[in-house]
């Protein structure tokens, strides 16, 4: 009895903390989203969905996630495979790859703004090479596509490392003997990756993907820095409702929507990448 209770007891402080600083505000936000002037209503959600910007923001956010996350996943897998195989300098490589992690998303947005700006690196470079005579407006309001690409690039640059770090840790947990057995029984490098690494990496893949997808739906500062209002996303709209339009109730509704989407995807990946208990390492 005592032995069984101990872990829960140890989790108590963290649970309390979560209740006070997360659950309570969450209830407040949910309450705000579902009421107006003290009366229960769904008007806030109607107002949010009724805005002409709403379909665009949803589309942009989903599209960004759908493009950025798979690219990041492939890159992170590739980088993690390379790093895991290094005999020497493994931690050095890990640190270098992880540098973007130490930079806040706003700073990351500003760095990429410095690259794509009218007087930025890219234009200077192109001018020096004689490719262009006049600086190009990469991030102007008519060039939605370049803005989108710039945001995607910045996001990939900024947040691939977090996935890679998780995957490197996961790969380190796979015993070498399975690779040896696979190799003896005829699996080349690609087959070993597909038949051994990927299945045995599922728990780490799950963590990495869920974390990254949630972050993708919360994308805000990078988009704000690079696109301003030219590439509206869900988080930006929430901000707008709260601070520009001064409507806390709709902002709360919008925040709840992001939460719902995040929870939905989390459950989806938990289910899809589930490892049956008996098949674990």
């Amino acid at each position, binding site marked *: 009895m005592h032995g069984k209770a101990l872990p829960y007891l140890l989790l108590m402080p963290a649970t309390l903390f979560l209740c006070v600083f997360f659950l309570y505000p969450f209830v407040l936000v949910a309450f705000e989203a579902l009421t107006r002037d003290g009366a229960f209503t769904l008007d806030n959600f109607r107002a949010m969905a009724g805005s002409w910007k709403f379909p665009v923001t949803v589309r942009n956010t989903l599209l960004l996630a759908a493009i950025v996350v798979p690219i990041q996943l492939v890159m992170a897998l590739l980088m993690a495979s390379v790093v895991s195989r290094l005999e020497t300098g493994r931690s050095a490589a890990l640190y270098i790859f992880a540098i973007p992690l130490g930079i806040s998303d706003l700073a990351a947005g500003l760095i990429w703004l410095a690259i794509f700006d009218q007087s930025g690196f890219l234009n200077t470079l192109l001018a020096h090479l004689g490719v262009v005579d006049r600086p190009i407006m990469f991030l102007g309001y008519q060039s939605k596509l370049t803005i989108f690409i710039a945001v995607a690039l910045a996001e990939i640059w900024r947040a691939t490392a977090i996935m890679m770090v998780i995957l490197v840790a996961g790969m380190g947990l796979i015993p070498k003997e399975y690779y040896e057995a696979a190799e003896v029984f005829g*699996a080349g490098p690609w087959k070993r990756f597909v038949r*051994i690494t990927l299945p045995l990496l599922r728990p780490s893949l799950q963590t990495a993907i869920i974390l990254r997808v949630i972050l993708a739906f919360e994308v805000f500062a990078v988009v704000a820095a690079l696109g301003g209002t030219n590439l509206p996303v869900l988080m930006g709209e929430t901000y707008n409702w709260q601070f520009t339009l001064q409507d806390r109730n709709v902002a709360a509704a919008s925040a709840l929507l992001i939460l719902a989407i995040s929870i939905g995807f989390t459950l989806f990946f938990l289910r899809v990448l589930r490892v049956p208990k008996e098949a674990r390492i």
Partner: protein
Amino acid sequence: MAEIAIKGVAKRFGGFTALHQVNLAIADQEFMVLLGASGCGKTTLLRIVAGLETPSQGEVWIGGRRVDHLPPRERGIAMVFQNYAVFPHLTVFENIAFGLRMKKLPQADVERRVNRTAELMHIEQLLKRYSGQLSGGQRQRVAVARALAMEPDVILMDEPLSNLDALLRLEMRAELKGVLAASKTTTIYVTHDQVEAMSLADRIAVMHQGRIVQAASPVEVYRNPAARFVGSFIGNPPMNFIPATKAGNGSWSVAGLTLPGPKSDKQKIEFAIRPEDVDAGSEGLHATVRVIEPLGPHTLVTCDVEGGLFRAILESNASVKVGEQLRLAPKPDRVRWFDPETTNAL
């Protein structure tokens, strides 16, 4: 045709030399057993043949092809790992089928081979389970089945029966011997169980501290050990050794007995005899009985001879008592002699 040649193979791990200049030739379809104490380099040698370890020096040839620069999958081998390496994310069926799927065999063939080898290893009722739901011995049999299913030219087995109970082990041993004799496979089989080695091997290679001390048929290894170590390692109880001093040209004095022996310039050599090769009688080595252990068919008698331990296996009706003085007569054709400096047979 898959003969194996190991030529001058050495392996160093940092400053530690695990294998010194190993030479071994294994004929096509031969059953070669590597026998030796824990840590003598058996697994290391097997892994070098498999290609999982690169030799620091030397060459490995399989079927007339030099393979030491080839990856394991191009060597035409299958292997049973000492720690099984049964894939945790695949069922027993898929584990056994793994190599066959890599070879892109048709599903019907895969099923036929998996079912047959599973039956052979008595694991046909476990095919749907995962590795995590198996006992150590069951896992080990999956590892063996996975290798057998490949029907390879060369099969490498690292203590494949070590985790089975005595009865099952006996049965599996016979099964393995039958299957491997029927298939045209060349086998290298690692074990530290000498009974297993004796019963399976065409030839036994006895290893000691990274060297092969003797490679010969089981009877030869037992009867004519090439070195003192082989005599002391093989046989239960092992060979007895008694110091011998020169008594004349080709005759030696051993524990109060003068015996004909090798002609040598040395003053001191070692006399050796197996415990079952002495008879209690009126003539022989002077021995004082210390311990008597009746074993059923025989009685194991431990004595003092020249201040050293000496074990004799006597008829169980021999009535000996502790403290008694015995005369143990060695059978002349079973006496062996060793050089105490080189430890080699004379």
